[in-house]
């Protein structure tokens, strides 16, 4: 935006003999400036909203339309209005509730350890270290790996037959776990992949926030005789509170969308139904299976909307928790 023009926002030209002649264009100019001032920000952000409209909003509304119709993969052009039937169908489906439970359980057992580890690692990286850039890069490497690659490698680790983990465990005599098949072991396996991939990412976010904490706070604390641990608890954590809330929101959204890891853990048909008894089926897998494997797009779209509602609920809870925390901190 142009900032050097002195006339902007200036009062109308001083009255005089020639004023009557020059008034017309100057009013125009002022109006143009005002328009520029008001409208151009919208023009600058327009590309995002246009793209968002085309690739975000439109698919979402279209999904809503499908959720109200009977649309089959085998005949996409035909659709039949069914109203809320699709929602009723999934809400009555025990598999849907299994998927909801699994999504939350896997979300919790992957997010909590992940964020705690990230906090610890960020604290370590925040010390004066030799080759600190190297360590910071290393810690982000897992994040740069694609989900598919990570999941496939971990699938080899967790394989029942000849898997790396079982091979190691076999030396302590417990190497017979069929990781993908168990009720809990499969969930742990998936959360291990998630933790491995995202810990570094969160570490860097925490690290950035930690470096913004004023050093005089630490100096004052150490003069007062606070230990490192006390400094971490009493200075670092409170300063990081908003950041922690942010990472919780991001991680929650991420775990809600958990898809590649469970799909590829056992792969094939088992992967697409989240295990033989849906023991690690997440909502995304449920959606995928309903829409793409069974070919019923209506209920699948209803699942997508149910996921949106769940996410909004979680966002709301986060908002409230955040507000309460800030009040108690103040």
């Amino acid at each position, binding site marked *: 935006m142009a900032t050097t023009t002195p006339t902007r926002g200036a009062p109308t030209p001083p009255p005089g003999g020639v004023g009557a002649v020059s008034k017309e264009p100057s009013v125009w100019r002022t109006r143009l400036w005002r328009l520029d001032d008001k409208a151009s920000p919208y023009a600058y952000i327009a590309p995002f909203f246009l793209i968002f409209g085309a690739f975000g909003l439109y698919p*979402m509304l279209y*999904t809503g339309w499908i959720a109200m119709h009977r649309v089959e993969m085998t005949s996409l052009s035909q659709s039949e209005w069914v109203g809320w039937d699709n929602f009723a169908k999934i809400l009555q489906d025990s598999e849907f509730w299994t998927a909801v439970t699994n999504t939350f359980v896997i979300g919790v057992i992957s997010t909590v350890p992940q964020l705690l580890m990230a906090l610890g690692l960020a604290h370590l990286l925040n010390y004066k270290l030799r080759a600190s850039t190297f360590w910071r890069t290393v810690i982000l490497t897992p994040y740069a790996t694609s989900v598919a690659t990570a999941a496939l490698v971990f699938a080899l680790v967790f394989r029942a037959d000849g898997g790396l983990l079982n091979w190691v465990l076999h030396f302590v005599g417990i190497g017979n776990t069929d990781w993908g098949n168990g009720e809990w072991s499969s969930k742990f396996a998936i959360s291990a992949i998630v933790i491995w991939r995202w810990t570094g990412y969160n570490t860097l976010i925490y690290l950035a926030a930690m470096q913004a904490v004023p050093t005089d706070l630490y100096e004052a604390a150490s003069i007062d005789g606070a230990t490192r641990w006390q400094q971490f608890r009493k200075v670092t954590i409170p300063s990081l509170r908003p950041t922690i809330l942010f990472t919780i*929101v991001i991680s929650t959204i991420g775990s809600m969308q958990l898809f590649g890891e469970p799909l590829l853990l056992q792969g*094939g048909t088992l992967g697409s139904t989240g295990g033989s008894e849906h023991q690690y089926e997440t909502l995304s897998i449920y959606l995928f299976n309903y829409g793409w494997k069974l*070919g019923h797009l209506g209920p699948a779209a209803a699942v*997508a909307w149910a996921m949106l509602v769940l996410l909004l609920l979680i966002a709301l809870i986060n908002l409230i928790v955040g507000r309460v925390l800030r009040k108690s901190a103040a």
Partner: protein
Amino acid sequence: MRITRTGGGHGRRAAALTTTVLTASALLLTGCSSDDSSSDAKDSNGNITLTVADFGQFGYKEAGLFAQYHKLHPNITVKENTTANEQDYYPKLLQQLNTSSGLSDVQGIEVGRIKEVVDTQAAKFADLSKTINVSDWVSWKEKQATASDGSVIGAGTDIGPMSLCYRSDLFKAAGLPSDRDSVAKAVAGGWEDYLKLGEKFKAKAPKGTYFMDSASAMYNAVVGSSAEQYYDASGKAIYKNSPAVQQGWNLAAEAASKKLTEGLPQFTDAWTAALRKGTVATVACPAWMAGQISTNAGDAYKGKWDIARAPGTSAANWGGSFLAVPKSGKNVKAATDLVKWLTSPAQQAAVFKAIGVFPSNKGAYDLASVKNATLPYFNNAPIGQIYADEAKAIPEAVLGAKDGTIKDTISTQINNMEQRGTKPAKAWKAATDSIDKVIG
């Protein structure tokens, strides 16, 4: 990242959050689509590249047929794109048909899906009845690929007459008769006899070996011997009361409870690993399975595997595929010619010789290479004779739209009974719940 300190208040934060959430969920819906664009166009020299998409093992590469076709038609090169598991292949095919993009010039279709394709997608495929002679096929095969308007959308590749593949060395070690005639005799009374044989095997079997790979395989073999399976002739799903399904299910439950099976879902890594390690003594063996076994078990067990008549007296069919030509392809004419050639007697016989997949074109049965065929890997079993006898007696099965998925769903629950000890009643309920969802 200190988003609360930058001011702006709750409104903006909430808005940002909502936007994130909206974007995230939108991404969810637009994800997972991959596009295999293939280069079909004729180049300046008039050369054509034809693409063939199939699944599992069609045997054309093994029989060298694509190279041979290139020799006969120097301007045509054939490229094959194989998906290992048909259950991954079919949903993708439907998506590609819906968008008319990413399709290959020739697409394989499994028999469990053909009814649904014929009923809902026939208009998208070229009518092959003008190029192939439908009466060359076994009577029921091409009927399955015929649409209501009389167009034939798929040329039959193979059929799956059933036999029993078994390890003669393990049988010997367990003190059972091991030559193929005695084995056939021992199970002549049907699949109940097969389970009895299994109990005898289990009593004296070498440590770490199992009588059968998976009960779901036996289930499929049992159901395959009935004309009426999951649907009745009017197109109504009757699987809940179908005698064939009930018999198969009960036998599978029995096998699971007596622990006669290793409980491995077929075509999974664990299953191929078990074949490689040689822990499985018998596999219900439609003709195409022989190729799977020899490929996966490897040279170590060459000659130790053998093939006997399947249990019982009624013949069963399991599987068998079709080759179809999507109309949207750029080389429909060339692709149709390729399909006609690939499904002709000589070529079907060549595939049979290479991997044991049994011809559906009757013309092939009179060829010496089929009639007198033996399979060296299986101790020179006379497969031509075994399968041809079986093929003649296969009943004309009533197909339904969701046959493939129903079969897969029931198989999954049988696996649960074997592997996780799920009680039959619970497994059956899970299966029917799931199938109701499929038929939806």
